[in-house]
């Protein structure tokens, strides 16, 4: 039985042929209001192979060249048929529209941050906690841990170097030494060279942490939040 395979959700693409999908199938559009889902009909769900992953990414990148706002779908996302897809677009419209506005004109850079589990992380000042009762001290430590997990405060020098280049950030804390954090930054399209230059300037201030950047990517890390409860990453968007 064939499946309808989802590649991305976007707003109005530039006119013209969109090309083919990862199985060579023609790409199809399903519309609800101003939301467009780009799909392909495949005979079977694709196998998880390197070539298929690269082909999926290639389709998403091609779509991103044709539309300024693209939300990539995860590899393997399928729907029964077009009515089910359109119903899904209708139900998820508010989140999809908000996410499309966020990623409009943007692309993603990803940083992997390596180091020891305590490198660059300050514990709450002992003096600040002494005046608190045991319950308040517990809450203060929990708050500090939450802030650390959601904002990666040890990367403050990097954020200063990047300045307004970063429109939004998603943080994944791993705490699996030496991989500490993955940070995904949404930056204006065409600025990846500036991003890497800013990263190079910030490196001395971030030692002993080590960083590896990849990208630009389509905004994969900023797409999941469009459908509410999927994202487990902490988010910060610039005002």
């Amino acid at each position: 039985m064939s499946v309808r395979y989802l590649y991305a959700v976007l707003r109005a693409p530039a006119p013209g042929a969109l090309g083919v999908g990862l199985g060579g199938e023609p790409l199809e559009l399903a519309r609800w209001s101003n939301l467009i889902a780009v799909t392909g009909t495949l005979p079977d769900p694709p196998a998880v192979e390197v070539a298929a992953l690269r082909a999926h990414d290639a389709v998403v990148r091609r779509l991103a060249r044709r539309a300024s706002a693209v939300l990539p779908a995860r590899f393997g996302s399928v729907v029964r048929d077009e009515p089910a897809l359109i119903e899904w677009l209708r139900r998820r419209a508010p989140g999809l529209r908000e996410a499309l506005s966020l990623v409009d004109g943007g692309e993603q850079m990803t940083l992997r941050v390596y180091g020891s589990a305590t490198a660059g992380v300050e514990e709450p000042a002992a003096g600040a906690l002494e005046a608190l009762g045991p319950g308040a001290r517990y809450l203060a430590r929990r708050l500090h841990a939450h802030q650390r997990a959601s904002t990666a405060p040890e990367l403050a020098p990097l954020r200063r170097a990047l300045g307004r280049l970063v429109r939004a950030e998603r943080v994944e804390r791993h705490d699996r030494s030496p991989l500490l954090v993955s940070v995904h930054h949404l930056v204006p399209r065409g600025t990846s060279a500036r991003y890497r230059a800013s990263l190079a300037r910030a490196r001395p201030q971030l030692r002993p942490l080590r960083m590896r950047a990849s990208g630009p990517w389509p905004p994969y890390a900023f797409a999941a939040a469009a459908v509410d409860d999927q994202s487990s990453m902490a988010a910060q968007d610039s005002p």
Partner: protein
Amino acid sequence: MKPRRAALSRPRAGLDTLLDGAGPSLLDLVDQVLNKGIVVDGEVVLGLAGVDLVYLRLSALLCAADGLRRAQRRRRPPRRARP
């Protein structure tokens, strides 16, 4: 006719071979394309348990890739000073 579950069992073996020996750039691709992006209300047919496996192995492999990269840097011959 083959049972539909056969299509789901195949991806797990594919995931194992996918990640073995993967370098940092392939790991990044796997993370973006397989761990992120929109899912249509849980209808990811390729075996969702396999995606959890990918996430767990991905963290370990990203660590290993970093270690390998640093070891390669240490093995590079030192630059000779110009006369």
